[in-house]
């Protein structure tokens, strides 16, 4: 009797505790991105995780292929007038938004205008635009004031913010206000009711999406969706994400920390691959407004003391997982050039000290901002501090969380009044590979990116690059931009970390793309 009661109790417990086998049957794949999704509007914020979300539900007029060339995406055909002043675009027929409304020229124009308010390339494009007008529901024209060599590259811009197309009623929202209703014309629909900021987001296959006929190539080509549902879950702890993938609870990790990669060794059910043609560059930016880095000779001395391998070994560790690269446009750029870079070679401290002596440096304090809450940046500032101390600079490394750093770096005051001398960052090469987009090449002075680099020559080179239509001449200009950036020490590239994704066999073969794309996954 007692035994049978015990058996019944055990059976009941098992029935209660064991999960129902079909509880997750309708979830095709669960993915983990590099961070939590909290803001949905990919124009309102340039957060990378929001950009990834944007690619799921929105589409673009043009898209970059694997060769880095813009290819039509929502556009069917287009013409360029002989004088290079008028572009006429015809949309593919049958394009629909997720609410069933057709995509029209008015939607496109409103979307481009909103995007241009927030994007450097968009702003430049609109500055040379005479008129953007609808010819009919499917055709629109872009009339320029003068020839511009970056029209298609702008419309195919892959980095944040991306020129995504949304319904006019949403695109009419001021760009300083976030859109929360997510209606696009992309391959996946967003499940609004499932969204929990920072926790979970769900996407369903958009049945009315018509993919292009060409094979998928990076951001371009046919987005053929084979999944019914993609669920994005946030897992803050990298170790937990790795365990969950090994255990089959999730199917994809966008970015595995370098020190956890070895945990997949010998795990046959998981594929580990480097991200294609894209990496994250560590960057060092000096404050040109305040001593000592308002003096170019001090900047050159500091750069001579830096050595990329020190940074890469401290932050990444495994030489197979980083790239030593001195190109200000990154080694992923079609315009890559490493002319003049010294930080890729062993540092010449004697020369650095000599340069510092010649500069007239008088021991002014160098405040290095140290972000301590982001894994990717935590080991960077101490290397900088030590390198500069080794040539006799008076370094004060100040620790803070990244949110504080973002606010602190806007202060233009002297270091004694809360200012700063150096901050370091980690930026995707998608946002660096074009000189018009790269924030570190912003040479407009106080109106520009923190660090407030001012150099009319650099701005002139960028203007020439923007209007130049000939690829060979653009390469020459990119070379000149590299040389000028190194000479003036606009910023110091500190090396590129190759990011690795990991995914289960359930995901199938992913598109070889610079970002996680799920339209070929099975």
């Amino acid at each position, binding site marked *: 009797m007692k035994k049978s009661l015990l058996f019944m109790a055990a059976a009941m417990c098992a029935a209660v505790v064991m*999960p*129902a086998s079909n*509880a997750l049957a309708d979830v095709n794949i669960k993915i983990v991105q590099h961070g939590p999704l*909290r*803001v949905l509007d990919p124009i309102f914020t340039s957060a990378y995780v929001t950009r990834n979300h944007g690619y799921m539900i929105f589409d673009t007029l043009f898209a970059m292929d694997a060769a880095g060339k813009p290819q039509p995406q929502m556009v069917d055909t287009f013409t360029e007038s002989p004088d290079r002043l008028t572009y006429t675009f015809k949309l593919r027929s049958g394009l629909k938004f997720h609410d069933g409304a057709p995509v029209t020229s008015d939607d496109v124009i409103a979307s481009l205008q909103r995007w241009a308010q927030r994007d450097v390339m968009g702003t430049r494009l609109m500055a040379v635009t005479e008129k953007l007008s609808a010819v009919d529901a499917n055709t629109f024209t872009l009339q320029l004031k003068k020839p511009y060599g970056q029209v298609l590259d702008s419309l195919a811009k892959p980095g944040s913010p991306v020129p995504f197309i949304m319904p006019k009623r949403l695109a009419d929202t001021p760009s300083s206000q976030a859109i929360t209703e997510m209606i696009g014309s992309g391959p996946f629909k967003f499940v609004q009711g499932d969204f929990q900021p920072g926790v979970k987001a769900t996407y369903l296959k958009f049945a009315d999406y018509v993919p292009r006929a060409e094979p998928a190539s990076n951001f371009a080509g046919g987005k053929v969706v084979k999944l019914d549902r993609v669920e994005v879950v946030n897992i803050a702890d990298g170790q937990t994400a790795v365990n*969950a993938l090994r255990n089959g609870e999730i199917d994809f990790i966008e970015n595995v920390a370098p020190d956890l990669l070895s945990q997949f060794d010998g795990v046959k059910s998981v594929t580990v691959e480097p991200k294609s043609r894209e990496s994250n560059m560590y960057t060092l930016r000096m404050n040109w407004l305040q001593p000592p880095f308002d003096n170019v000779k001090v900047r050159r001395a500091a750069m001579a003391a830096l050595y990329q391998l020190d940074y890469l070994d401290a932050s990444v560790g495994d030489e197979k997982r980083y790239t030593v690269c001195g190109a200000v446009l990154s080694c992923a750029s079609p315009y890559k050039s490493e002319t003049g870079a010294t930080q890729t070679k062993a540092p010449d401290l004697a020369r650095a000290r000599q340069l510092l002596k010649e500069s007239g440096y008088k021991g002014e304090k160098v405040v290095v901002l140290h972000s301590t809450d982001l894994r990717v940046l935590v080991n960077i500032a101490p290397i900088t501090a030590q390198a500069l101390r080794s040539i006799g600079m008076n370094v004060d490394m100040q620790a803070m969380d990244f949110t504080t750093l*973002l*606010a602190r770096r806007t202060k233009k005051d002297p270091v004694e009044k809360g200012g700063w001398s150096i901050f370091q960052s980690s930026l995707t090469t998608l946002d660096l590979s074009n000189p018009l987009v790269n924030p570190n090449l912003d040479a407009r002075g106080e109106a520009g990116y923190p660090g407030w680099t001012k150099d009319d020559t650099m701005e002139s080179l960028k203007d020439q690059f923007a209007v130049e239509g000939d690829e060979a001449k653009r390469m020459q200009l990119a070379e000149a931009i590299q040389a000028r950036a190194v000479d003036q020490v606009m910023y110091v590239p500190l090396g590129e970390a190759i990011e690795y994704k990991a995914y289960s066999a359930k995901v199938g073969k992913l598109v070889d793309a610079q970002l996680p794309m799920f339209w070929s996954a099975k």
Partner: protein
Amino acid sequence: MLSLIIRRLFAAIPVVLIVATVVFLLLRMAPGDPARVIAGDMASEETIAQIRSNLALDQPLIKQYALAMGKMLQGDLGTSIISQQPVSKLISARLGPTAALASTAMLLTILLAIPIGVLSAWWHRRWFDRVATASTILAFSVPAFVVGYVLILVFSVQLNWLPVQGYTPLADGVGPFLYRLVLPSLTLATVFVALITRITRASMLDILGEDFVRTARAKGVPEKYVLFRHALRNAAAPIVTVIGVAITTLISGVVVTETIFNIPGVGSLIVDAVLARDYPVVQGTILFFSFIYVFVNLAIDLIYVLLDPRIRY
């Protein structure tokens, strides 16, 4: 009893107002700008200024305070600066996982800690007591993240018996709900079992030497009644106090455990909100915690009265 409850609830109003004011001021004193967090690394100053204006972050501090307090007095905790969702909705979404984890961990703790503590006192300085004491010292000393990772390694990665992470709501079934709570509850219970066992043992040792216990035994009262009816009831005050503190700790979020097991609870909500300088979420969450503290303290005081008729407020 009713008048006590009413008096305590009225007394909570100034407490909550002071908490709200202090939190408001602390947040505004902290460096960092939510507009920059939203706009991202490469946004222009003009963009950030527009966002600040839209979020009323460019208003004078006193006006921001008046707005926040006015909303709060109407029962509106405001809207998240980052996600644009109502704070009350964000908290309620995270409350389920936190409450589930807290209640299972607490239930496990009470079921284990009180009997072990009582028996340790009863078998004072015998092998059971020594083993229990050594175990509780060890359990209290090992950080929760170590316990969590070891449990995951053994039961999830190697044996594949239990899931690594995640939370399933009770609405999806009792089985899946409990299945995902086993390891995080065990992780949390480890430290609380250790704490409450020690308190129970110490409290019981004090009581077991009292005259009324000796009298009960002399009258021939069975030992189990002596221990669990006479002694434990009189030893309960400090135990109840610690259980109350443990409950507030659990409800206000156990960030490390939530992070390791990827449980979307209140703890991770407030940490994320602080890092992003999401003022309304931090403010609303802390306000919510202050209410919890008030109610738990009130509940503890009421339990004191029930346990010991000599106590009067």
